[in-house]
């Protein structure tokens, strides 16, 4: 035996499970195969780890898998509905925002909306000549833009 029991015990505390089982060619594995006392310690360590694994298995999920899957389905439906709602709401919101922006800008600039009925103010007629009351007058345009014929009657 290349190592003594005291050194073996120290190594057993950190060894791989295979070495605890005496498998392999390491000094420790060889020692475990040859020393009854250390083999008993190694066996107890493996048993203890198996007990721990079993005890942890007992602390398994308290929610049955079918129940957990049901919760996933419910959550998915809620999320799916929300996703569909967004698919509708997002374009609507965008359209509303664009419309609001359009109106705001139109309001600020005083521009008319497309299709709006336009009522133009009546054209203002500048007086060409001043005429005394109870007298009639007619103004005739001529080809010469700078000349007009005025007939008082």
């Amino acid at each position, binding site marked *: 035996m290349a190592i003594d029991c005291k050194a073996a015990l120290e190594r057993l505390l950190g060894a791989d499970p295979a070495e605890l089982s005496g498998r392999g060619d390491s000094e420790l594995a060889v020692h475990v195969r040859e020393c009854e006392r250390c083999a008993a310690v190694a066996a107890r360590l493996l048993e203890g780890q198996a007990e721990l694994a079993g005890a942890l298995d007992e602390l398994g999920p308290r929610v049955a898998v079918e129940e957990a899957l049901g919760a*996933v389905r419910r*959550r998915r439906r809620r999320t799916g509905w929300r996703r569909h709602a967004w698919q509708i709401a997002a374009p609507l919101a965008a359209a509303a925002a664009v419309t609001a922006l359009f109106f705001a800008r139109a309001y600020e600039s005083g521009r008319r909306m497309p299709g709006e009925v336009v009522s133009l103010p009546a054209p203002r007629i500048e007086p060409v000549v001043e005429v005394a009351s109870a007298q009639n007058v007619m103004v005739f345009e001529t080809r010469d833009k700078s000349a007009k014929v005025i007939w008082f009657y």
Partner: protein
Amino acid sequence: MSEPTRIDESVSALVRGAQAGDEAAFERLVRRHYGQIHRWALARTGDRDEADDVTQEVLVRLHRHLASFDGRSQFTTWLYQVTRSAAADLHRKSARRERLVVRLKREPAPAPHDPRAEHEAADERRATSLVRTFLEELSERQREIFDLCDLQGFGPAEVSAMLGMEPVTVRSHLFRARKAIRRKILESHPELVEGYGD
């Protein structure tokens, strides 16, 4: 190139099916890994209630993000990372951090005059003590590495990939965890180590 095992092939088929929108494949995949996810969550959080919550969250994330699994790593590696991420998020959200109260669901303490029952009670006490050590005395890292390597049988290389850690770091945590757990195991069997110090 090594041949994939039948189990791996089966998981791959389920993953592909679930990614393609096959709900039955998704549910089979969940049933297959449900207990494992919970165990990972328990080792990660050290708290059974939190492990339940994390497990539920992982299932939701699995459904939502399975499409992003590209098959470059093993599915278990990817799933473990989803579990870790869910546990970390839940831990951040949770203001309270109630420490573990281990309640092993076992039979009540048997009558002391029955030798067989006494033996079972002693076993139960030992197991409870070990679970307490595991959940309360080991650090989060030590706990998850010890559980993955020594209790669930994952190889150190796979655990390194799962945790995104250097193999030497994994071994270091594993070594410390083993020492703590094994010392606790030997505490209940002093007769085995009598005379070792001589």
